[in-house]
């Protein structure tokens, strides 16, 4: 490199890139240290496995949300799509059997995502409105399908999937990790993933570069809807019920995890690894507050403050 001399930068540059995630990791580690000091129950294997199981649902949702947010979009409908898929699993299980029920439910989730995607990418409806509409629509469908009453799920296999362990790790946590790895692969190693970043960074430029912007934007919502349905599998198998109110408000939790994980809401910057760390931060926070029996009203207060502090601290850490 001819200009090595002027730019002693490589090391510095690397450090900066690393730091983009380092901030999140530091925040997580600090939180874990504090949590272990506050309660000696925190750093026990069962509790840590608990945390992993607890974050699975929002974590999976947040992976899908990361795709969407990377394109500078947003998906408010994932909580409702989860709810819709959940009642479908429960409702179809008995008469059609597990595989069909799961397939149809997942298709419904991906289908709802497809509608979102077409609305956003082809009809040009702002993502916020399109998915807000879907939030209402899918929830309405779930209610109509069930008549408002939850449907119990009595399938042992399914129950064991949601509550069992594999190699000592809760299965929902494994689903989350598999989702993480697959998402990281797609985003990092495929032309599609690369283009997702490009679209979020400058949609116009991506279009000019020949990226099939509308198609890819659509796919991103399909992924998000599909992963919401996958989170629905974890939800309903864990809880043994298909309730039409499942997942209400989860979209905000998922967005919070994504943003705490360092992904920019303006698109083009971030990663699913960050989202995973963000999910962990929020999960550990909730766990610690519970372990220490903090007054629930005060929990709300503390949680609000701590998320802000975490993001602030992270951005500081990333600056230096």
């Amino acid at each position: 490199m001819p200009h090595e001399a002027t730019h002693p930068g490589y090391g510095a540059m690397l450090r900066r890139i690393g730091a983009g995630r380092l901030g999140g990791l530091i925040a997580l580690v600090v939180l874990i240290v504090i949590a272990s000091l506050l309660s000696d129950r925190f750093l026990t294997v069962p509790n840590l496995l608990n945390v992993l199981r607890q974050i699975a649902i929002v974590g999976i949702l947040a992976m899908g949300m990361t795709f969407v947010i990377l394109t500078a979009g947003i998906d408010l409908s994932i909580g409702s799509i989860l709810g819709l898929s959940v009642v479908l699993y429960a409702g179809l299980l008995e008469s059609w059997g597990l595989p069909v029920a799961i397939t149809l439910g997942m298709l419904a989730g991906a289908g709802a995502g497809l509608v979102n995607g077409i609305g956003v990418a082809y009809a040009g409806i702002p993502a916020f409105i399109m998915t807000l509409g879907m939030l209402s629509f899918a929830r309405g469908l779930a209610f109509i399908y069930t008549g408002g009453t939850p449907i119990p799920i009595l399938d042992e296999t399914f129950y064991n999937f949601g509550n069992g362990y594999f190699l000592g790790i809760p299965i929902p946590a494994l689903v989350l990790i598999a989702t993480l790895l697959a998402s990281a692969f797609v985003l990092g190693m495929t032309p599609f993933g690369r283009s997702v970043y490009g679209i979020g960074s400058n949609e116009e430029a991506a279009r000019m570069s020949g990226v099939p912007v509308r198609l890819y934007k659509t796919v991103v919502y399909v992924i998000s809807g599909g992963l919401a349905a996958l989170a629905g599998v974890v939800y309903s198998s864990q809880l043994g019920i298909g309730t039409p109110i499942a997942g209400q408000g989860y979209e905000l939790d998922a967005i919070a995890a994504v943003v705490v994980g360092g992904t920019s809401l303006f698109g083009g910057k971030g990663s699913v690894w960050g989202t995973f760390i963000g999910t962990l931060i929020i999960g550990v926070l909730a766990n610690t507050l519970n372990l220490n029996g903090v007054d629930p009203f005060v929990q709300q207060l503390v949680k609000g403050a701590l998320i802000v502090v975490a993001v602030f601290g992270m951005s500081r850490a990333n600056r230096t």
Partner: protein
Amino acid sequence: MPLKLNASLVTPLLAVRGLGKSFSGNVVLSDLDFAVHAGEVQALVGENGAGKSTLIKVLGGVYQPDRGELLVEGEPTRLRSPRDALARGIVVIQQELSLAPHLSAEENIFLGHFPTTRFGTVARGEMRRRAAELLDSLSIEIDPSVPVGRLSIAQQQMVEIAKAISLQAKVLVLDEPTAVLDEKRVATLFALVARLKAQGLGIVFISHHLEEVFRICDRVTVLRDGRKTGEAPIGEIDQEWLVARMIGRDFPAHARQARRFGKPALELRGLSRRGEFEDVSFAVHEGEIVGLAGLVGAGRTEVARAIVGLARPSAGTIRLHGQDVRIDDPGKAARLGISYLTEDRKAQGLLPNRPVRENATISSLGRFTRLGVLNLVKERIYVREMIGKLDVRSAGMGTEIRYLSGGNQQKVLIGRALAVEPKVLIVDEPTRGVDIGAKQEIYALIEQLVARGVAIVLISSEMEEVLRLSDRIVVLRRGRVATTLSREEASEETIMRSAALAA
């Protein structure tokens, strides 16, 4: 004002001493002295990435210096924000246009210092009147109430200049203001600069066009790799002196090779788009460069956009290698082998917060993909080679492209267009903001491509560039083909005459 002139000859209006600035360990400016005096036009020249923009960002309060001091009229000062700088009469026009696209031209001009009524509301009448006066004095023909996002880049640049003037500056800093202007507007701008200088302003002028430096500047400062490598009154130096200090090497004299054209590659027949251009017909052959000349606003960019499917033509046909094609989007264009290098780098070219590497390959990911998976090693090797070939200067291919200097950004985008190995390449203002060294390199690149049989459409407001590269020149005037000139017929004069002729 004239009374103060003598005193301020001694004390510069604005100066920095021992200035140092680095970004996360990357030294961009070191130990720099620089001063602007009243009634003087000070040129700042240097290669892409030399640190010119960084220096003026320090002057404008955008960046804080790491080392050294800044003096305003002899007084050590800290400029904490552009607002501070403006309050001290230091006005900077950035290299990257910075206007609010949704606001009207008049509002952009007065953003930050709106004239107000006695009730504290915006004095719209006064604003309109003063805006009209300003635009008039710069002969800018736009409706001041139109959102500037709808204006062409050149018009936006003129609005920026109008804004700067409205601020009643003591020091005016212009970072490559002429890059997007055609000859006519450059002349207007220079007349204005002369006027302001006579009024006692200190002016800093950055340009890669050295002849412009000789045309209007009194002194020149040369930067190289963040250090001052020369400073002199303009009368005492010549172009070679400048180039030597900027680059430290010479260019081989330009020798044009004879070209052999092949079959027609791209043919336009009666292409029209209502309100933008009409009945545009011309052909480009394999191995040929067709220059598209014209004044700003003549519709050249619109034609290019129609070719690559960014705008739908209302009439006419596009033929590619003898076959009629319909191109709906740039993706299709790319698949057909047509590549377009846009004129609006920031809005349509850069993926600002993505690394150089990704910016370079976004159009050509297919060539690094096997079984749907990217081969990151292959990509890295390719980009490293490309960076070397185009002499892109940055800390590395992992740097976000927005941190590169303007010229280096442009080189990466050229690399992007080349990576798809196009058969037809449309380049729109390819050397805008590019230093003279890099310019030569880009010309060489274009010539290499042509030699390999690529058909090239060259849109450029730089007469010299068009003349030097083109085999034929199509001159557009108000959306219509005014004339087509062969290489022999073409000269600066013939082009200007048909481009500017009154209808």
